[in-house]
């Protein structure tokens, strides 16, 4: 099983979400997701200062194999995007939970964050998907 850090929240569409001290959120895709997709070659980042509803497709990552939508884990506004990925999408493969983050957002409703999967639940979900 791929690396699943215990201090993050997860979605069933394989995004991870980290809560920073100032309550802003960082979003990326999990080690498991990048492993399934393979070598990343293109990232279409979300629009800055744009609000998305939970579950909206807001970004796209493309590997050699396929394009994959990234869904906003919660409702909120995009406040920062990781421009480094534009020239070096492979960072997502190398460090999916650190330098490979995709965007930061401010949540509208923090209950939505609490309702996401924890690490154990995400691990169980991945295991169930493989069967």
């Amino acid at each position, binding site marked *: 099983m791929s690396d699943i850090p215990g201090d993050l929240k997860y979605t069933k569409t394989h995004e991870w979400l980290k809560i920073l001290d100032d309550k802003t959120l960082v979003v990326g895709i999990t080690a498991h997701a990048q492993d399934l997709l*393979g*070598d990343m*070659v*293109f990232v*279409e980042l979300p629009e800055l200062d744009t609000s998305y509803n939970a579950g909206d497709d807001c970004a*796209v990552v*493309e590997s*050699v*194999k396929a*394009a994959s939508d990234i869904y906003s884990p919660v409702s909120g506004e995009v406040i920062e995007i990781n421009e480094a990925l*534009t020239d070096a999408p492979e960072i997502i*493969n190398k460090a999916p939970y650190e330098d490979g983050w995709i965007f930061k957002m401010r949540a509208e409703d923090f209950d939505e964050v609490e309702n996401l999967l924890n690490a154990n639940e995400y691990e169980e979900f991945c295991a169930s998907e493989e069967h």
Partner: protein
Amino acid sequence: MNAKMVDFGGWEMPIHYGSQITEHHQVRNDAGMFDVSHMTVVDLNGIKTREFLRYLLANNVDRLKTAGKALYTCMLNEQGGILDDLIVYFMRDDWFRMVVNAATREKDLAWIIQHAKNFSVEINERTDLAMIAVQGPNAREKVQQIIAHAEQQSVPQIKDMPAFNAYELSDYFIARTGYTGEDGYEVILDNALASDFWQKLHQLGVKPIGLGARDTLRLEAGMNLYGQDMTESTTPLESGLGWTIGWEPTDRNFIGRSVIDAQRQAKEHKIFVALVLEGKGILRHDQRIMRDNQDIGVITSGSYSPTLEQSIALARISPIVEQNVAVEIRGKLIPAKIVKSPFVRNGKSCLP
């Protein structure tokens, strides 16, 4: 070898063993091996085999004059549509060998057997044989080492074999052919010997390559994939394969001829082009191609080119003289340019 496996026409096949891009570069810069045992090897035996193939195949087997020579050709239906693309090897007057696609195996065999009846040609599918492609600038030397060791001497027929030829040893059928745009061999051998041959190559530093890199390699080489770039409802002229048709002599009657002769005369058919994306994004199968607000065609194969580090594609479009088009990617029009195929040959970019 820790491969990611996928179902491919009923065969369990590796997509990649590690990084698909690393595997791609391994073939372009050194040597890689592909287990392509899913390909269908068919032997045709009988004194009228050449006469039969003159009728069955769109390319003219009379181009095969010396033993071992290979020919790339389409096999057409009566409507000029492509039933399959294949390589045919002329070994002896009473023995030709064909290698056809796996996904089309059943319909191909039925078609061949049906038409062979009038020629009393014997059709033998060789399920006892495996096939390993070894490709890249250092590929031939590695295979030669193994062969020389097995035969206890250097084999000049293999070493000095020109491109697009094959030679048969007792245990190995070795062809200087491939699907990557690199030099190399495709080795056909008994199933029982395949694992040992694979291990020997591995010991010599030849790395296993999955289906993923096989696809980007063939795309850079401008080679069509059956079922994607061409199907039963597209003709060779619409698939960039007009060069594979043996138009001469004009009185050679082959299946589908009348339809593609007429299409060639009318000059109104769709054309098959190579595309390079000029904006950001990745070209993919089924994206639409636009010019002056008109939908002029579709991408048949598209991907990221690891050698060129940009996106490339093959596409079928209405005939145009301009080189600039746009591709619709997620609702946006991104500029792309028509270029000459192939994109890459022998490790080097062919782009201007």
